[in-house]
Structure formats: structure tokens, C-alpha cells
């Protein structure tokens, strides 16, 4: 445990020096404040407190931004060590590859948690400031934070796995962007296209819920929207969230980080310095 912690402290320091902490936090705060300002319009129409509406908008933001930040931070994890030539020496130390990877993930996860907490927190402050009744929505804010951390852990693990598979930072960056595009952007577009062509048939009723749960980003969105009962406030794919029981989307959120980290460790073990 102390070796994981030592690695995490060192990684956090490096991320801080490389301005990752300020970039991640700044990005989340900026986007959250823009959404909080823009999200004031629908209040009253849907009959929920202002913070819950903000959380619904933040969910749509986080589903893109959290995976992006996670991949940007983690794609260098193994490939960077290989390129700098620091990996052989590190691997002669009495520390396992699992410990090295967990240390790096822990540091990146702490940065991500800090960024989402400050970002969402800023948006929540704006909401509560303009409408004191919005404190009712604090529960959904808290839910958004911890699910964002889980979503982040999934993509951090995936980024580390790609980093170990590519072994070169440029290749790892390309793979990370491809993963983001496919898992976060194109997957939804494809589902949407299928719904339209299906016209409420077997695909929409049977395959769609499974397809949504099979993607961590969609499971995150579905869970947050249905838990906040803010489905109506969200359009597009999110509208399908009502059809999926809460426990199913929650159950899909937890195994993903473990699977991604497992994959990363397996890929890292194959790297020969």
C-alpha cells in the first residue's frame, strides 16, 4: 500500500507541475458555470428544483468531458515511461506492475475527483444562490460526483491499457482519441439512427436498453437522469432512460472500472522493457 501511495504522490506532483491539475479543474469549472447560466431557462416547465435541472445539464456535459479528461491524463502512463527510458529502472524496484499502475490511477483519479467536485460545486453554488429551494437537489449532485468518478476510473483504466498496448505516446494518444470518439460520440449516434429506422419496434424495446447498459458512458447518463427523474429535461438518447430500472444502470457502472483496470494490468504485464 505504501508503494502505491508513494507512486501516487509522485504522479500527482508530476501532474501538478505539468499543469494537469489546473487544466482539468479549470475546464470543468468553466463548462459547469456556462451550463449553470444557460440552464436557467427550463426551470418551472418541468416542475423540479433548479439544481436538479443543472445536474441534468451537467450529466450531458460530463458524459463527454470526464472520459476525455481521463483519457488525456492516462494515455501517457506507460508509453511515456517507455519513451523517456524510465521504465527499465522502475521495473527493477521491488514494486509490482499492479502497484505501479494503481498508484498512477489513484493520482489521476484524485485529480479528476477534484476537478468534477469543484466544477459541479461551482454550478451548484450558482443554482442555490439564485434559488434557495435548489438545496433539494444536493442528493443528485452528490450522485453525479461519485458516478463521474466511476466513469473517470473506467476511462483512466482504458487509457492506461491503450498506453501499454501502444508503447509509444503518439500511438497511445491516437488510440485514446479513437476510443473516445467511438465509445462516447459515435455509439450514441449509431443507437439514435437505429431507433429512428426501427420506429418503436423490437430494437427500441429489447436491444436498446442492453446497448445502453453495455456502454459505461451511457450507463452513467441513464443512471443519473433516471435517478434524478429529470428524464424529461434531457433529450435524445437520454429519453430512453426511463425504460431502464435504476438498479440495472447502477450495476453497470461498478464493474466497468474494474474491467478497465484489469485490462490495463494485463496489457502492462506484456510490456518488455
Amino acid at each position, binding site marked *: 500500500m505504501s508503494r502505491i501511495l508513494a507512486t501516487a*504522490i*509522485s504522479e500527482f506532483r508530476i501532474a501538478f507541475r505539468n499543469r494537469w491539475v489546473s487544466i482539468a479543474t479549470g475546464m470543468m469549472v468553466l463548462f459547469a458555470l456556462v451550463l449553470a447560466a444557460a440552464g436557467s431557462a427550463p426551470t418551472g416547465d418541468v416542475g423540479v428544483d433548479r439544481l436538479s435541472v443543472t445536474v441534468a445539464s451537467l450529466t450531458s456535459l460530463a458524459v463527454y468531458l470526464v472520459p476525455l479528461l481521463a483519457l488525456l491524463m492516462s494515455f501517457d502512463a506507460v508509453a511515456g515511461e517507455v519513451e523517456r527510458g*524510465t521504465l527499465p529502472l522502475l521495473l*527493477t524496484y521491488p514494486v509490482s506492475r499492479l502497484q505501479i499502475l494503481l498508484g498512477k490511477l489513484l493520482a489521476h483519479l484524485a485529480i479528476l475527483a477534484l476537478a468534477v467536485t469543484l466544477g459541479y460545486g461551482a454550478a451548484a453554488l450558482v443554482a442555490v444562490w439564485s434559488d434557495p429551494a435548489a438545496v433539494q437537489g444536493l442528493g443528485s449532485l452528490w450522485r453525479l460526483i461519485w458516478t463521474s468518478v466511476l466513469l473517470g476510473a473506467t476511462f483512466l483504466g482504458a487509457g492506461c491499457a491503450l498506453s501499454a498496448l501502444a508503447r509509444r505516446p503518439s500511438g497511445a494518444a491516437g488510440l485514446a482519441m479513437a476510443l473516445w470518439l467511438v465509445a462516447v460520440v459515435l455509439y450514441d449516434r449509431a443507437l439514435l439512427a437505429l431507433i429512428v429506422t426501427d420506429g418503436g419496434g423490437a430494437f427500441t424495446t429489447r436491444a436498446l436498453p442492453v446497448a445502453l447498459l453495455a456502454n459505461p458512458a451511457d450507463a452513467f447518463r441513464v443512471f443519473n437522469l433516471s435517478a434524478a427523474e429529470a428524464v424529461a429535461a434531457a433529450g435524445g438518447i437520454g429519453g430512453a432512460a426511463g425504460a431502464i430500472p435504476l438498479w440495472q444502470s447502477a450495476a453497470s457502472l461498478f464493474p466497468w472500472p474494474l474491467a478497465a483496470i484489469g485490462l490495463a494490468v494485463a496489457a502492462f504485464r506484456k510490456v*518488455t*522493457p
Partner: protein
Amino acid sequence: MTATLTLSRLTKRFGDMEALKAVSLSLEPGKRAALLGHNGAGKSTLMKIVLGLIPFDGGEVSVCGAAPGSPSARAQVAYLPENVAFHPALTGEEQLRHYLALRGESPRQAMELLGRVGLAHAAQRRIGTYSKGMRQRVGLAQTLIGRPRLLVLDEPTSGLDPVSRRDFYDLLDGLAAEGTAILLSSHVLTEVEARTDSILILSGGQLVAEGTLAALRARAALPVAFSVFPAPGHEASLAAAFPEAATGADGHLRLSCPQAEKLPLIARIAALGDHVADLDVIPPSLEDIYSHFSRRDGQ
């Protein structure tokens, strides 16, 4: 005494190429061995196998009584890679604190270790601003953590100035005196000659010679060279006395003979009395011995 490092018939292949062919050696506590060889002779491959960084195909390797790369072996072995690198964003002190923590030692020793390699003044600066020699010292400092039983040093003095090299070998002498076995590779044969106990010569993946410098010198049986300087006016008589000699630019004579005939030749020269102004005896250098053993078949 149990050996710290034992290799027996170690074989490593990269595809069709045999990088190491049945290499056997053992290194006892407190002994310093120098691994010599051309680029591509297999030195780094051998070191990486000892460290457990790459697998091997045949033979046996025992590092401090354990398998190479096992947790027990890694806890007792320290490594300095060739062209050692660190994260440029960390300071020297932060990097060492990290390494200390990974070895389960107190990070407070970082400054003391940096002091031992003469880097205390730069401890708070980022490694990205260090010169190659300074990075090499950080690399050296991390090998001193926690009294390792085996040190594996790949080209440890590259990038160090002559004074730093001497300090470096002084540090090694101290470690060896405490029982640490040291395996190092170097291209600078003169320093290896003076500061190691035995020499291992790898050529084409084979261990072609092993032993102390004196033993290798005897085995190689290379000729001893002589420079004889004639006294003024005796150039011609001296040249006539040694018809086999070559004449150098300033009139001195160059002779060579097998080790066994060294003393008779000196006696012959001495018998010429005041015809001879001076005499230099030049034993075969480590370079000569090294070239003799590392010469490949057919060359």
C-alpha cells in the same frame, strides 16, 4: 562462501540470433567484476536477464539465492541503466524520495544520498535542468539505497568527468568492502584495469575470457614491447646489435618478445652498457588483451 550471482549455461535467443551462448559465471560477495565486450556482444542482454527484465531461453540464473526478477531478488539488487533517465518535472530530491519509498526506506535519507554523490547543491532543481553527468549521479545515488547485495551498473561512468569517475570508484570500493558484489560494464578499460577484481570478456554472446587481469595477461601471452634509446654516437652499433628491431622516428629502437624471453632480452640490452641511454618496457595493455580475446573467429 555462497556466490551472490550465479549463471550457468545461460542462453538467450532473439529470433534466430543467439544473443548469449551458454554463459556461465559466478560473482562472490565483495567482488567487483567488469564485463567487457563490443557493442552487441550481449552485455546489456546479460544484465537485463540478471535483473529479471527479460526472460531467458536456457540455463540457470540465481540472484542472491532467488530467481531473477523475483520480489526477493529485486529487494537486494540495485541497477544503474546505461543513459539513466528520470522524469524531467521532478527535482533530484523528489525523485530520490520516491525511490526510497519504493524500497521501503525512509524518504528522509534523500539529501544524505545526494550529498554522497555530490549533488546536494542541486537537490531542489528539476532533473530536466541537469547535465548528463548530474543525471548519472542521481542514478548512482539511487543504487546506494538500502545496502544492496548486488549492484548491476551498465556503463556507469559515461558522462562523468575524470574526478567524478575517481569518486565513483571510491564509492564502489566502499560498497564492495561492505560485501556488495558489483557487476559493471565499461568502455574505459584503463579505469576497469585499476578498480576491479576480475574481468569478463563477452564476444558474440560467448564468455571468451574470465579472470584477474594478471591471469588473463598470462593466458594471452602477448609480446612485451621495448623502446631502447641509444646513447649519442652509438645509434649504428646499437642497430647492429639488434637487427630484428624497427627504428623509430627519433632514432630509438622498438623491440618485442614473448613474456618468457623478457628477462634474457633485458640482460642483452644491459650488456651493451653505456651504448644505451634509456629503456622502456611496455607490458601488453588491457586494450591489447581485450582485442586478443574478443577477436571473432576468422578475424
